[in-house]
C-alpha cells in the first residue's frame, strides 16, 4: 500500500514525540486511575471489616467502634475513595490505619518516605549494574554463537533465573558471610541515614537483586540480538564489506537496543518485585519490608498508598522506556 506512495514529508506542526508521549501519558493515567480503584476495592470492599482486621485479637466492640470512627469507615466507600485519591493527587497519603488504631496520627508519608528512599537507592544501584551488564552479556552470546562463552552465559543465566531471590540471597550469605566472612549478612540502615554510608552492607542485597533480573535481561537481550543478526540489513551490510565491528555495533546492537529497552524496563519492574523479597532476606529497611509489614498488620492505608506509588513508578518506567525507544527508532518519531 505504501509502495507507490511518495515519501512522507516530515510535518513540523506538532512534535510526534510529544504527541506520542502525550498519548502514552494519558494511557498511563487512565491505567493508574483504574489501578487506584482496584487497589481501593481490594482493600476496602473485600471481606473482612478493616477495623476489626487491624485490631485483631484486641478487637473488642468498643475498640472497634472507636477505630471505625477514626478511620471514618462509617462513611460510604465511594466518599472515602474520593478522599484518598484526592489526597494522593495532592501528595497527601493520609494517616496510617494502624497508627489510628493506636490513637496516633502518623502520616503514611512519614512512615514510608525513609524506606522509599532506601529502596530507590538499592534499586538504582542494581539497575546501574543490571542495564550495562544485561546488554553486554546479552550481546556477547549471539556474537560468539555456539562457542564456549555463549554456552557459559546461557547456562549461568538459566541457573540464576531458576532460583527464587530468597534462595539466592541465602546462598550468597552462606558463601560470603558464613564461609568467607567477607561481607555483612544484613543491611541495617538506621532511619535517616544514607545506605551508601556503609557500602559493604549493600553488596549482597545488590548481588541478589542482580542475579535473577540480570539473567532474565541477558536472555531477552540475547534473543533480540540473535534476531537482529539474522536480518537482511545486517546481511546486506556484511555483503557490502562494512567492517564487522561496525556491523555489530551500529547495525545489530543499535537496533537490538530498542526491544531491549522494553525488556530492561520490564526487568526494572521485576526488580521492584525482587526488592520485596531481597529486603526481607537482608533486613534492609526499604519499601518492600514496609509493605510486607503493612500487609501483615493489615494497615490498609499504608498498603494502598505504597501500592499506588509503586504503580506510579511502574507506569513512569514504561513511559521512560517508550521515550527511549522513540529516540532509538526513527520511525516512531513521526506521525503514524
Amino acid at each position, binding site marked *: *500500500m*505504501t*509502495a*507507490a*506512495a*511518495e*515519501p*512522507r514529508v*516530515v510535518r513540523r506542526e506538532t512534535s510526534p514525540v510529544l504527541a506520542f508521549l502525550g498519548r502514552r501519558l494519558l494511557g498511563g493515567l487512565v491505567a493508574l486511575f483504574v489501578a487506584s480503584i482496584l487497589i481501593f476495592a481490594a482493600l476496602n470492599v473485600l471481606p473482612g471489616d478493616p477495623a476489626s482486621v487491624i485490631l485483631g485479637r484486641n478487637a473488642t466492640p468498643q475498640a472497634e467502634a472507636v477505630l471505625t470512627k477514626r478511620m471514618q469507615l462509617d462513611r460510604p466507600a465511594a466518599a472515602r475513595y474520593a478522599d484518598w485519591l484526592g489526597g494522593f493527587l495532592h501528595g497527601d497519603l493520609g494517616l496510617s490505619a494502624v497508627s489510628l488504631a493506636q490513637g496516633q496520627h502518623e502520616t503514611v508519608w512519614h512512615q514510608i518516605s525513609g524506606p522509599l528512599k532506601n529502596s530507590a537507592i538499592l534499586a538504582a544501584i542494581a539497575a546501574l549494574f543490571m542495564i550495562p551488564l544485561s546488554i553486554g552479556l546479552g550481546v556477547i552470546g549471539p556474537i560468539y554463537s555456539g562457542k564456549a562463552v555463549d554456552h557459559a552465559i546461557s547456562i549461568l543465566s538459566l541457573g540464576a533465573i531458576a532460583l527464587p531471590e530468597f534462595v539466592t540471597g541465602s546462598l550468597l550469605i552462606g558463601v560470603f558471610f558464613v564461609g568467607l566472612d567477607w561481607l555483612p549478612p544484613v543491611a541495617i540502615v538506621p532511619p535517616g541515614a544514607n545506605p551508601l554510608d556503609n557500602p559493604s552492607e549493600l553488596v549482597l542485597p545488590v548481588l541478589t537483586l542482580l542475579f535473577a533480573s540480570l539473567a532474565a535481561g541477558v536472555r531477552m537481550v540475547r534473543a533480540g540480538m540473535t534476531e537482529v543478526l539474522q*536480518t*537482511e*540489513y545486517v*546481511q*546486506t*551490510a*556484511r*555483503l*557490502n*564489506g*562494512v*567492517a*564487522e565491528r*561496525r556491523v555489530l555495533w*551500529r*547495525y545489530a546492537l*543499535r*537496533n537490538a537496543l*530498542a526491544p531491549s529497552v522494553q525488556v530492561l524496563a520490564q526487568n526494572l519492574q521485576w526488580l521492584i518485585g525482587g526488592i520485596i523479597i531481597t529486603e526481607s532476606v537482608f533486613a534492609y529497611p526499604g519499601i518492600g519490608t514496609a509493605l510486607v509489614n503493612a500487609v501483615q498488620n493489615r494497615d490498609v492505608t499504608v498498603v494502598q498508598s505504597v501500592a499506588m506509588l509503586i504503580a506510579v513508578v511502574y507506569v513512569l518506567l514504561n513511559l521512560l522506556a517508550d521515550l527511549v525507544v522513540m529516540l*532509538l*527508532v*526513527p*520511525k516512531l518519531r*513521526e506521525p503514524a
Partner: protein
Amino acid sequence: MSAVAVEPVVRVENLCLGLQSGEPVVDGVTFSVGPGEIVGLVGESGSGKTTTALSLLGYTRRGIVVRGGTVEVGGESVLGRDRRALRGLRGNTVSYVPQDPGGALNPSMRVGDAILDVLRAHRRGGAAAESVRAALERVELGRDPRFAGRYPHQLSGGQQQRVTIAMACVCDPPVAVLDEPTTGLDVLTQDRILAELRRLRDEDGMAMVYVTHDLAVVSQRADRITVMYAGRVVENGQASDVLERPRHPYTRALVEAIPDFRKPRALRGITGVSVGVGEWPNGCAFAPRCAYEQTRCHETVPVLEETVPGHHVRCLRWMELDLQAGERSNGRAAGVAVESAPLLEVSGLEARYRSSRSGAPAVADVSFAVEQGRCVALVGESGSGKTTIGRCIAGLHVPAAGTISFDGVPIAGTARRRPLEVRRRIQIVFQNPFESLNPRQRVRSSIIRPLRVLRRLSRAEAEREVGELLERVKLPARLGERFPVELSGGERQRVAIARALAARPDLLVCDEVTSALDVSVQAAVLELLQELQRDLRLSMLFITHNLGVVACIADSVLVMDRGSLCETGTVSEVLAQPSHDYTRRLLAAAPCLPDGAL
C-alpha cells in the same frame, strides 16, 4: 563468452556446494560475466540460483560448504579467502543488492550514512559526502539535498531499492549481484528500477548478475541468461538466443508458461514440482517433468554442451529436439455465450479500512457486474482496493455503502447474515496458498467442511465426494490424507480450489491466486481454472495485478486505481487500446517477452 574479447570480470568454474550433511546444493556450475554485461540467473525456487550468486561474494549460508570449483571476481579468487580479504572484496570489487529493500536498510540509520558506511569500508578520507551525493545522483535520488538525511521508513519501496543500489555502486565495483531486487515491488516501480539498472550499466559499465525466478523480468534487460534447475546450469546463452531458440525443454516450458498480454494464448504449465535439495533424481534432474524424456535421461546426467558459440545447454536430446515451433493457440478459448442477467451486480460500493483514521475510503463508488459463466478480471496495483472488493463480495468485509446483489437479490454485508444458498454459491480462493489451508487439518478434513456445512451432506457422502473433488483439481486422491505442510504451493492452491468447488459454487472469487507461485506452477493453475470455468459454467471474479494473466483468462477487465474503477471493457479492447492513462502506464510497464521470443 568468446563474443566478448576482454577478460570476464566473473568466472565461475565447476562450482560445487553442498550441505554439511552431504547433499549437493549446487553442482558443477560454470559461467562467466564479461565487463558491463547483465546476466540473468533464472530458476524456480530451490534451483540454487541465489546460493550460486552469493558465492560470488564469498558468502555461503550457514550449513552450506564449498565442495569444489573456483570463483574469480575481478581477477581475484574468492573461495577460501579469509574474512578480512573478503571484506575488502565485498562492496569494492563485487557488491550486493538485496531482495527486500525495506528489510535491507538499517532502520535506525539515515540513508546517506548507510551509503557512507560502504564507502568508508573501502575508501579513506577524500570527499566522502561528495561521493555519497554522486551515488544518490546516479540512481536519480540526488535532486533533493536533504534526501541523504532521511531514514529508510521515510522512503517509498522504489526509493529504498535505489538506495541499496546506490550502496552497491558507491565504490564503483566492476560487478554487482542483484538478488531478486524487484520482487515485491509493483509493476510500475519494477519497470523504473530495471530501466535504472540498464542505464547504470550503460553509463558506468558495471556488470550485473541478476537473480530472478521470473524469466519475463530479465527477458528484455539482460544480455545473457543462465537458467538453473536443481543446482545445475541447464542452459546459458545470449538472451535473445535463449528466448527465441531455447534448447532445453525446461527453458522452453518456462517461456511458454509466461502469460503475455500482448500475445494471449493458452498457457501450459510444467507438470510436477521442482525438485528440492536432497531429492535429486539420477540422470537429468528435469527428466521426471520433461515432455521429451527417455529412459536414458534417467540414467545419465547430461553435460553442458555448446550448441552455437556462447550458447550452452545441458540436455541429452538437444540436437534431436526442435523446440522452436511451439504450438500456439490463439489466446483464450472462445468465451461461453453471454446470458443477459448478471449473476453478480455491484453498485456504488464503498469500503473503508477498519483501522483507517484518514477519511479516504479504500474503495469508492465501484459498480460492475459479472454475468453467468463469464470471467471478469479486476486489475490494479497493491493497495488499489481490488482485494477489498473481493472480500466484500465474499462477505468478509462489510461495505460502508452501496449494494451487492446476487442473482438479482441484494445480499447482506457479513457472510453469517446471508442465506445458506448464497453462501454456498459464492466461494473465494485466497492469495497465499501457504496460509489458506489449516496446517492442523488433513487435506480431506479441509475439503469435507464445506460439504458438511454448506451442502449438508452426511459424513459418508462427504467422504465419498472428496476423492472426486481432488481428481477434479488433478490431484491424486491419496493426497487427502496429507497435511498441508507436506504439499507444494501449487498443490495447496489446488486443494484450496477443490475446497471452493466442494460447495458447487456459481461464482468463484479468485484473489491473486497465482501471485505467490512460480511462473510454471502459475500456468498450470490458470490452466485448471480455465478448464473448470468452462466445464462447470462457473462465473469468476479474477483479481490480479498481472496483465499477462488477465489476457489469458478473462473475458472482460476492470482496472482499479486508488480505490475506484478507472477503466472497464473487454480484455481485447482494454489491452489493445487503453483509454485511461493509468492503464497505459500499467501496460507499458508490464514485463513481457521480447518480440522474437518463441
